[in-house]
């Protein structure tokens, strides 16, 4: 596999884990994959470990390959893909969560409702 793809996969998997860890830390239950925060933390650690070990362990990575600027946008692509997967997967896995408190906006609204539910409720409110 090309190094750029391997690098994107590293950032995607690690970002998926870090977003889970941060969602547990910030109490954003609507982004959790699991209802139990401990399971969420274990899942986050495993994702980060898998990401780094599959990138670094199979071969020597002390090689020139992905330039500095390219690294920045590949990281952005990996993090945004991980965010999209988190929003979709958590909305499906935690679809029983909510409805949340009225009037909450922003990330804090995801403390008691899923992303898609928050979008839906926000749209209903704005529409009516």
């Amino acid at each position, binding site marked *: 596999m090309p190094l750029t793809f391997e*690098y994107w996969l*590293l*950032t995607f998997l*690690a*970002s998926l884990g*870090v*977003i889970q*860890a*941060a*969602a547990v*830390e*910030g*109490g*954003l239950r609507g*982004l959790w994959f699991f209802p139990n925060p401990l399971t969420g933390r274990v899942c986050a650690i495993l994702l*980060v470990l898998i990401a780094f070990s599959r*990138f*670094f362990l199979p071969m020597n*990575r*002390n*090689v*020139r*390959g*992905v330039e*500095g*600027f390219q*690294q*920045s946008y590949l*990281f952005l692509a990996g*993090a945004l893909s991980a*965010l999209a997967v988190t929003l979709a997967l958590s909305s499906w896995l935690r679809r029983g969560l909510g409805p949340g408190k009225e009037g909450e*906006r*922003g*990330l*804090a*609204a*995801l*403390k008691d409702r899923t*992303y898609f539910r*928050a*979008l839906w409720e*926000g749209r209903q409110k704005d529409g009516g």
Partner: protein
Amino acid sequence: MGADRALLLYINGWAGQIGPLDWVLKAVANDYLVPVVLSLFLLWLWFARPGKEGTQLAVLAGAGALGLGNGLIKLMNLIYYRPRPFTELPVRLLLYRPHDSSFPSNGTAVAFMLATAIYLGNRKAGVVALAIASLYGFSRVYVGIHYPLDVLGGAAIGILTSYGVYRLLPRLEPLPSRLVRLGRSLYLA
């Protein structure tokens, strides 16, 4: 410049003496490990402190600094080229041979841009991030691809760029607030 060379030869003189130390510093000096770890720190800050606008502005400053700092370094490289230490001195090279300008250390600059943004968003995490960035800079000298002055220059550019962009944000109002409000309306900030 003489002191710079002498310090490089002293630090690099340890390379190849202690196997485990070589292994650790080679891993730290890698192009991918530290930048990814520090970027993940920033990502964590964004989601772990929902509703804290100051923290999220620091993350935005870090992202802006990366763009600006990379451009600044590219411009500096066009004006000034310093050969790598392994082309001039009998250093023990533990990494591959980069051919771009030795000054400033691009990797160190990026690490300090990220670490400074983390520090501006969260002091405790920032101290850890700055320690990681410093170790990264040291390791780049240890493995023989930079002079100490390259690393110091990179660190200064990184810190000043991130801090400068962070201080500039209020002057760019209402753009930063609009960005955060847009993020809020999409439940992402």
